[in-house]
């Protein structure tokens, strides 16, 4: 290209046709795909008995009732810090894995990778392996090409629909929703969500693929901050492979390196890159090029690992003739240990919080408008709004009492008794009057510290909240 004419700043996407490959990393990816997709598609169908008043779906995000169910754990809106904690753990976990093993998340478990893998798999079933697909792509439209394309798109659409469908099952009772979806009685939001997710799944997994990772995802950019010279990435041992060339005896093959320039590593790459150019932004470290190269090396009788998981420090060592450090020495270093410690700390804190949380919960909101009311007999009365949360799966009687001064008396709005019934898995707002007789200490003092006790009469559980009783201050 001559430098005088202005080149285009835009280019069409180069289609990528990854070749089928087998090997230990490919097998690992199949297993991970099976597990992750299995969890995603199947977990809404797991049942979990919580008694008659609560849903029996093991994993359920009940937005309407503001509850999150996860097996035996039930999260209320005010316990959202559990979710925040889990997100922090997910973040720290990503930091840990990235600093130790580079883009292992991208290469193996990222939904974009997993679904793209699934879409490429179906593409191969329908259209054949790399060569057949390249040929088909170059062909003019014919009946056969149209048939193959339409078949592929229909399968993709079904996968997309199943993906969007599985998503909505997390938000309501799955079997009921499944029937409603089929009979056309489900809420429009369910259909819209499914349609949008189906569309994006097909678009991202079927058509955009590596473009999502290279141009849309912010994570590859952020990751650079977490990687260092000990981070394991995929590298090409160019000190062993170069100069590359076809090994033909007549051309002085003894001068060439181990790389026979067969392009196997390039052909299997789902990102369409050449790993021999070195580490690069587009590489998701999925390891398929390692499988492909190991295969070739075995065939030509050379040791495996021309393309391999390596850290930057390994290059320097190997160039000096030393062996690469074992993987565990790269992985265990202060940085990763710190990340692990932080991750565990948050995890332990969440577990402790989970196990010490009470099954009843109380908040007290004193009514401060006005701070007190004088009754006709001179009694000073304060009013409090108590929110009683019954996290049991059954109705519970709660007795409310107040401590702080023997003169204080309590009265519950709407009932002559000192206990109220709180329905299963609900919050009850109970207004409570606390009264101090004329000239008693709390009535005269400016303020008296008091403590509300709520006792579950069924099993003796009790919780308290502190508050203040306001007197006339005279």
């Amino acid at each position, binding site marked *: *290209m001559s*430098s005088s004419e*202005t*080149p*285009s*700043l*835009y*280019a*069409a*996407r180069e289609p990528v046709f990854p070749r089928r490959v087998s090997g230990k990393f490919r097998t690992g990816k199949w297993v991970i795909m099976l597990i992750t997709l299995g969890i995603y598609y199947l977990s809404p169908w797991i049942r979990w008995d919580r008694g008659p008043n609560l849903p029996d779906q093991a994993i359920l995000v009940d937005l309407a009732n503001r509850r999150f169910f996860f097996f035996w754990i039930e999260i209320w809106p005010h316990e959202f810090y559990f979710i925040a904690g889990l997100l922090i753990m997910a973040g720290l976990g990503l930091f840990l894995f990235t600093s130790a093993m580079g883009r292992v998340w991208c290469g193996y478990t990222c939904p974009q990778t997993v679904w793209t893998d699934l879409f490429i798999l179906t593409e191969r079933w329908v259209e054949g392996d790399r060569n057949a697909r390249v040929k088909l792509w170059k062909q003019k439209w014919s009946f056969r090409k149209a048939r193959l394309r339409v078949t592929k798109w229909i399968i993709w659409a079904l996968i997309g629909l199943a993906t969007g469908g599985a998503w909505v099952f997390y938000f309501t009772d799955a079997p009921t929703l499944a029937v409603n979806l089929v009979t056309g009685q489900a809420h429009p939001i369910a259909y819209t969500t499914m349609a949008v997710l189906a569309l994006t799944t097909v678009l991202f997994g079927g058509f955009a693929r590596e*473009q999502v990772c290279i*141009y849309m995802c912010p994570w590859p950019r952020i990751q650079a901050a977490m990687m260092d010279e000990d981070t394991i990435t995929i590298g090409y041992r160019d000190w062993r492979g170069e100069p590359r060339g076809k090994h033909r005896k007549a051309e002085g093959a003894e001068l060439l390196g181990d790389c026979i320039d067969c392009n196997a590593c390039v052909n299997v790459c789902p990102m369409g890159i050449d790993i021999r*150019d*070195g580490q690069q932004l587009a590489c998701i470290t999925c390891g398929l090029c390692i499988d492909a190269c190991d295969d070739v090396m075995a065939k030509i009788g050379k040791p495996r690992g021309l393309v391999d998981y390596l850290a930057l420090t390994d290059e320097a060592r190997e160039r000096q003739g030393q062996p690469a450090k074992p993987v565990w020495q790269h992985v265990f270093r202060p940085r990763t240990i710190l990340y692990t410690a932080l991750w565990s700390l948050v995890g332990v804190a969440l577990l402790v919080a989970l196990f010490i949380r009470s099954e009843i919960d109380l908040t007290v909101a004193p*009514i401060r*408008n*006005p701070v007190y*009311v*004088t*009754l*006709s*007999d*001179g009694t000073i*009365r304060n*009013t409090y709004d108590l929110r009683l949360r019954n996290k049991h799966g059954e109705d519970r009687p709660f007795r409310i009492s107040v401590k702080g001064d023997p003169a204080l008396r309590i009265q519950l*709005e*709407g009932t002559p008794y000192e206990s109220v019934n709180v329905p299963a898995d609900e919050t009850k707002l109970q*207004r409570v*009057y606390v009264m101090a007789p*004329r000239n008693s200490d709390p009535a005269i003092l400016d303020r008296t510290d008091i403590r509300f006790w709520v006792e579950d009469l069924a099993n003796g559980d009790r919780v308290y909240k502190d508050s203040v009783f306001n007197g006339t201050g005279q």
Partner: protein
Amino acid sequence: MSSQDDKKNAEGIGTTGHEWDGIEEWNNPLPRWWLWTFYATILWGVIYTIAYPAWPLVNKATAGFLGYSTRAEVAEQIAEVDAQNAELRTALAEADLTAISENAALQNYAVQGGAAVFRANCSQCHGSGAAGVQAAGYPNLLDDDWLWGGTIDEIAYTVANGIRNEQSPDSHWSEMPAYGRDEILSDEEIGQVVHYVLQISGQEHDAAKAGPGEELFLNECSGCHMEDGMGDPTQGAPNLTDAIWLYGGTEATLTETVTNARFGVMPAWSEEWRAAGGLDQSEINAVAAYVHQLGGGQ
């Protein structure tokens, strides 16, 4: 030059043609779909500003051909909720108020709705917390002292017809004589009556004045406030023996009250008596239910 640069040259990748102080920029072309996405967002933006309210003009913004408005949407949602509650509204208007607390759904609707009615119409005088204005003639609705009765039916009647107004022929009416201004009692006698009232309400008093004050009280005051000073809710005569004072219970304020009398008024809120802004029966019942459950209802 690095090996990367060599490679780019070998592959014929040019520069963008930009140069800053000898620094050139390799041409790493963006995918074309990105460009089309950019154009699509522009197109979307144009269509959006035509379809929805967007461009600010002098007085208002362009309306957009879809005619969408968040305000209209809110109005629609309010109408929807009103339609949903139509049955409860009818039931509330016709309800037997004394039995309303037995119907949890109706009671809840009445209290919530009543709170809204109260904030809009009553809080100006009685305060947003319904505590009134102490010692200034706006009664505290939270306590257990009621001038005109504190049952839910009596509260509803007071709301509908008000106190000492010209609007409703059925408004509560009573008037205390201005004993000093109209020279019914002398200043000395007023002082005696005041000290008697201080005595029966359990406050510090001068017994020498309270003694003759008792006879004056029985002659002049007991017709409304009763012989024992406990007052009479049918006449709106307050109980003078308790701890609650609408205009203050000190010697000075009591002297002022006896000398010049008081004439607290409240508008009639029933739409029957108001040209505009009146409450219908369901709203009256709702606010009565709300006030009744504030802690002093009888």
